């Protein structure tokens, strides 16, 4: 019964939300049409973009400004503390570890995702069309899986049982089969092996995304440039690195940056798998634990502000890319 009510409410929200929006636009439109023509032409665009700007303003821009302000306030946002949140965080060795881990994620995950995506894109291009489609679909499929779902999937792989008993985790089964001692992999923080194993999950999720975009770029490389290389007797490897890669380089950078931005705010995988313990904590998870576990809104806000500052160069890059596209259009 409860369930039926929830579903009906959701459907009602859709119907009334869509109808309401339509009626709102229609009414605003009618009102604007009553205005003198000159005024109408000036006001109408704002009627069209108004609600979108309002939503973005209310749910992104205004909260972002509030966050900056709150980052200078105490844990309950009741008194100013100056830059204390920042200095405390940056001074604490645990947060420094968080930064090191995050940096490691930012280097390893995009590099590996792009490299794997490129390898698959190039190799799949050489299969017959049916197999190409099938193999690409299989590698792309994890894109649909949530990070929580992925964590459940990889938990089975990293599972550890005490030495002597049968290993139910694939990794330990292989490890023990090769003569090793069973390891609790997610607690194995030497050389940050556990962090690397968590990164594997994200790479597994995202390589398909890179592959699709890179594959589209590779297919766009003009045949005659490759043919010219062949005629000159270049090897396939030389053709790939000297002719194909330079032409798809802009796409490689775009894909790398996109994955990188995603990695900087990853939360789910670490939160679900280790909760940030065993020296696997990263910025996204630390933000959450400051906000909820420690109830420290000031620290949480300061972490987000630092994240924003780190993302700003990519924002500039994004805008530049867009401007370039517009010129070419």
């Amino acid at each position: 019964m409860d369930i039926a009510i929830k579903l009906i409410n959701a459907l009602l929200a859709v119907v009334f939300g869509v109808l309401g929006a339509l009626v709102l636009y229609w009414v605003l439109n009618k009102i604007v049409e009553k205005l003198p023509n000159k005024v109408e032409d000036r006001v109408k665009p704002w009627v069209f973009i108004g609600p979108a700007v309002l939503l973005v303003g209310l749910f992104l821009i205004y909260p972002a400004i509030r966050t900056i302000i709150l980052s200078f306030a105490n844990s309950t946002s009741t008194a100013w503390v100056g830059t204390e949140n920042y200095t405390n965080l940056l001074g604490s060795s645990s947060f420094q570890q968080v930064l090191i881990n995050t940096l490691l994620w930012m280097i390893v995950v995009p590099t590996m995702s792009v490299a794997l995506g490129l390898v698959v894109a190039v190799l799949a291009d050489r299969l017959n069309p049916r197999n190409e489609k099938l193999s690409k679909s299989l590698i792309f499929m994890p894109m649909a899986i949530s990070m929580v779902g992925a964590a459940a999937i990889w938990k089975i792989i990293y599972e550890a049982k005490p030495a002597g008993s049968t290993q139910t985790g694939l990794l330990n089964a292989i490890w023990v089969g090769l003569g090793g001692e069973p390891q609790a992999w997610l607690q194995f923080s030497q050389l940050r092996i556990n962090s690397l194993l968590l990164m594997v999950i994200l790479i597994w999720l995202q390589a398909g995304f890179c592959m699709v975009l890179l594959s589209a770029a590779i297919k766009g490389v003009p045949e005659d440039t490759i043919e010219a290389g062949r005629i000159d007797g270049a090897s396939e490897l030389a053709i790939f690195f000297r002719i194909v890669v330079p032409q798809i380089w802009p796409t490689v950078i775009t894909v790398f940056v996109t994955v990188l931005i995603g990695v900087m705010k990853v939360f789910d995988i670490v939160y679900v798998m280790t909760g940030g313990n065993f020296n696997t904590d990263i910025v996204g998870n630390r933000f959450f634990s400051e906000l909820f576990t420690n109830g420290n809104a000031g620290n949480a806000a300061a972490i987000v502000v630092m994240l924003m500052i780190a993302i700003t160069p990519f924002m500039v890059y994004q805008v530049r890319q867009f401007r370039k596209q517009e010129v070419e259009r």
Partner: protein
Amino acid sequence: MSTPTQTAPVAGLQGRSRRRAAKVATDKGKKPNIIITTVMVLLCIAWVLPTFGLFVTSLRPEEDINSSGWWTAFANPLSATTWTLENYQGVWSGGQTPINISFVNSLAVAIPATILPIMVAAFAAYAFTFMEFPGRDWIFVAFVALLVVPNQVALVPLLQFYGQIGLTGTFPAVWLAHAGFGMPLAVYILRNYMATLPRAVIESAKIDGASHFVTFWRLIVPMSVPALVSFAIFQFLWVWNDLLVALVFLGSGENMVLTVNIKGLVGQQGQGANLLTAGAFISMVIPLLVFVGLQRYFVRGMTSGAVKG
């Protein structure tokens, strides 16, 4: 990549025949060899194996899951005791947090959060594409810049704000948040798509005396269906798979969604750990169906530069 270069003797040929010869040559150069095929087969297996392992595990009895690896199920694949649906039954309606309620909650969150932003974004995209007004380009650039802004920036103030007006833990809190967070991407995808529509159509509608409202509703919306679908898929998958926003605004109360519920199952050791596999698989069914059924739109959206930050 060690295919020997198979250059056809094209040097002396001219024009069309030369091009055709070149085509044949590259097709030959692309012939799959055994190494490439092997590598690709191995990569595909590596990519599918983790999900396959989860699926097999979810169909095994609890004692078996705890005492042997999932691959051992294939030692005796036809035995009646190898497979069971107990985990699915258990996680669907049993235990303290049955997943059937979360499943409905996820639908109740994801459907409105997908559909509500579309209309708003479409109107805005129309204005950005077909109307002239001061500041237009700057406002649109602001949307582009917002694409990469992490949602985390909004969470602390929104949580405090929702707390003050008593919206925490309710569905509208999440719908509105997702509508706001998804807006830059929606406007971006739709505007980029509308910019490729033939201007002549809009001009002639204007000459026929159609207002912007009519042009939008009768012409542009029907023509933009592919882009609308692309965005809808992105947003639906994103909301359905989201953990952070759901955890912050809905938590684990009566409106708990699937991702939050499954997160709770991951924490369980021993008893109940078997339920996780079935629960995780149930949570993946809808995204995978959407994905397989609408993959073409999804890929089109991605290659047209639609990428959520």
